[in-house]
């Protein structure tokens, strides 16, 4: 086996390197630009520790569902039912915990299992009966919206047990002595995370180098690492000066890391992309395309259930209107993040950034006092614009 790498002319290498990375980081830069914009026009309110914490709490359930939706979209499908499913699960959780006083751990697990069952029920029709996912999940959207109403009998149901509320409104416990308003445990975790990220990417780079694989220029790598570490540190610092890391942020980060890993590095992730890229070719390569499609819907069901629980815990009550319209934000997040409506293309990082763009815009516009009417108009235009830019880039 030869370890030779291709050597291209120097200028072309750097040219293509920058071009490729512009596409990868383009959305991230848009997010930074949007944040700066709102930071300025809101007179610094956006990045105040309190507001930042709220921003995370408000968008956590969108991000969680976007992870599942990304996989569904990558396989070439769509799930319109996630909002209704989240609302329905919230209602069931309230029924179990408030009305029947079921233990919250048990209720939590039961709700996730119910989400999986819902996903399986929908995925079955899509994967094995080849019914378009748009139709199946449109039906699901109506069914679960109706069931949520039925379970709650049109009333709000709450409050939840205090421990369950911690899922959304709790913060990680403080183990170290407090220093003024700063929460040292959170700060420490942030610092460790920043170090870990830089270490991991340095190790990956040197590993590639030792195998003679072409790597990014050292200057670029160094700059990227410094920016990344500073961003993580600054963000945790802001959060730590309010009440520390929210529990839900920890859950969300863990999920993002997990799904990022699964999509990029595992066999099942690779196969999901292959199914979306060319289902026939994938199936003739021995991939069980139907089962994978089915599993992405099961996964989506579980994440929709989790999001429903987080949302219910945050409101501390289950309402018949919970989850209304969530699917639109979730789907928009995936497409803003560069997923292709034809399947086969999309990144976890992109979907997360897409969700954050939507979240920052919601939050920023609310601070500015822009009415809900024009907020929607602007969000719609941003979605269209982001996808147009992406399509234009791909044509080039």
């Amino acid at each position, binding site marked *: *086996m*030869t*370890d*030779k*790498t*291709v050597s*291209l002319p120097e200028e072309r290498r750097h040219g293509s390197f920058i071009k490729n990375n512009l596409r990868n980081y383009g959305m991230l830069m848009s997010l930074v630009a949007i944040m700066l914009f709102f930071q300025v026009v809101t007179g610094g309110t956006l990045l105040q520790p309190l507001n930042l914490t709220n921003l995370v709490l408000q968008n956590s359930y969108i991000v969680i569902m976007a992870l599942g939706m990304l996989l569904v979209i990558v396989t070439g499908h769509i799930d319109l039912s996630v909002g209704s499913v989240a609302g329905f699960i919230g209602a069931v959780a309230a029924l179990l915990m408030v009305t029947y006083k079921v233990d919250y751990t048990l209720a939590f697990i039961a709700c996730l299992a119910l989400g999986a069952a819902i996903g399986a029920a929908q995925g079955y029709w899509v994967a094995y009966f080849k019914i378009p996912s748009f139709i199946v999940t449109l039906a699901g959207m109506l069914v679960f919206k109706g069931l949520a109403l039925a379970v709650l009998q049109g009333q709000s149901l709450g409050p939840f047990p205090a421990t369950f509320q911690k899922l959304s409104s709790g913060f990680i416990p403080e183990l170290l002595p407090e220093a003024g308003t700063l929460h040292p445990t959170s700060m420490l975790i942030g610092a460790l995370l920043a170090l870990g990220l830089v270490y991991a990417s340095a190790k990956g780079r040197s*590993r*590639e180098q030792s*195998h003679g*694989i*072409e790597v990014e220029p050292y200057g670029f790598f160094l700059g990227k690492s410094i920016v990344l570490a500073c961003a993580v540190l600054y963000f945790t610092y802001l959060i730590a000066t309010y009440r520390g890391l929210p529990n839900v942020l920890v859950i969300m980060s863990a999920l993002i890391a997990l799904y990022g890993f699964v999509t990029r*590095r*595992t*066999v*099942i992730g*690779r*196969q999901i*992309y*292959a199914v979306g*890229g*060319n289902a*026939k*070719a*994938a*199936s*003739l*390569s*021995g*991939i*069980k395309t139907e089962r994978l499609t089915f599993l992405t819907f099961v996964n989506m069901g579980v994440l929709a259930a989790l999001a429903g629980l987080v949302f219910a815990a945050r409101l501390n009550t289950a309402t018949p209107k919970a989850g209304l319209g969530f699917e639109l934000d979730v789907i928009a997040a995936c497409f803003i993040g560069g997923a292709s409506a034809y399947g*086969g*293309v999309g990144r976890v990082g992109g979907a997360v950034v897409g969700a954050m763009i939507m979240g920052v815009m919601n939050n920023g516009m609310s601070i500015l006092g822009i009415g809900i009417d024009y907020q929607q108009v602007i969000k719609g235009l941003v979605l269209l614009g982001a996808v147009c830019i992406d399509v234009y880039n791909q044509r080039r």
Partner: protein
Amino acid sequence: MTAMLEMRNVSKSFAGVQALRDVNFSVRAGQIHALVGENGAGKSTLMKVLSGVYPHGSYEGTIIFEGEERRFRDINDSEALGIIIIHQELALIPLMSIAENIFLSHPPSKFGVIDRDEVYRRTRELLAQVGLKESPDTLITDLGVGKQQLVEIAKALSKRVRMLILDEPTASLNEADSAALLERLMAFREQGIGSILISHKLNEVAKVADHITVLRDGRTVDSIDCHAEPIQEDRIIRSMVNRDMAHRFPERNVKIGEPVLDVENWSVYHPIHPERQVIKNVSFGVKRGEVVGIAGLMGAGRTEFAMSLFGRSWGTNISGIIRLEGREIALPSVAAAIDAGLAYVTEDRKQLGLILADDVRKNITLASLDQVAPSRVIDDIAELKVASDYRNRMRIRCADVYQETGQLSGGNQQKVVLSKWLMTDPKVLILDEPTRGIDVGAKYEIYCIINELAEAGRGVVVISSEMPELLGICDRICVMNDGAFVGEFKGSEATQEKIMRAIMRNERSIGNAAPAAAEMGGSQP
């Protein structure tokens, strides 16, 4: 009588490949002119030049129709003069009625509102003219293929038709429908309409044609006036296939060993029309180090046979026995077939072989991810090394293994597909049209790879419509027609004429009775 249509010195090339060279072709009014030739001989290209699909300027030569030189910009120009082409793949909209289909583009109307009475009246007239007894309201999807063909002709007649071009019109018809269609053609002859009939079925051609032109490699090689001389089938076949061996094939070092794949009594039914037996109890075998060719016309069932073997990826109600290295095995899924050591390189690399938006590396490892993913997590460095290794070995020309396969040339794409299957370390490879759409240089490289595979002791099956290719690279050639093997030749003894004769003999003995060919799905380009 002077010619109604004259095409003079027509030449046309595609990206360096000469599809037509100095073709002269003429049709008189009231004449049925048959155009015969192998797959890829240039028949369809010639007809596309005539009908304006390839506009004036994209080819060389002149077209004279009804006494004037014509320069068609598109198909509308030729249709306006009454040159109507009916393609092999029918272009009807299944969920619309006969009347709606016939008057799809220019329905009779008043102030933009369709005049339904007029539509029905004229549809009835046209249906009577083609001899189709159906209500104008009947949906196309409720008609058989034979009747659909008649609707196409009625649609052609709804326009002012002077010359009718039929591309393999009977390929998917049964005997009665074919006979009816040919009778229509003869009726048109009486009305002074000129017809061009493209067909593989020499018995049909012999029955109706006034004149036969044989094309080979884009040239006119024979022209027969059927009224002046008796039709000799042998002569036509010889003209069709007898070409100089322009391609060169690499030297081979043949060492044939034990049987590796044996198929017995294999039978497959059509997935959509389950009453139709597509593969008819065939037996087939390959030995280690052997290259076996499967020859046949398009739609003979070769692709269907291969795909049904490969984990039942085509057809229903599959029965028969597969033995791999003497052991009887069941291959219920593609994954099982791959595990057992079978590989199938599809005929259509873009639709079925590659994920075009993915890079070379991901495509190569797709069928054998386990090799680079201990415990289901992909070792990206191992993957990169494997991919780079194949890139060097197969001489895949790409910037690096991260390049999208969609950006590669046909030959390099094919090498990526071959790499994918080599990585599964198969005992038997089935290559379906491995050199279709590939330039001559890349073809040679593919032949070299095939030889290397055989020399390494693998069994190789090559399905190809290019007979010289089969003659150049195979140790044995099996001829398939209408879902059965109708001839087998040693590589050294086979000639194109023998193969063609085996096919034609069979075509005639089954007559047109078999609803073969075009409908079998998937095998036509």
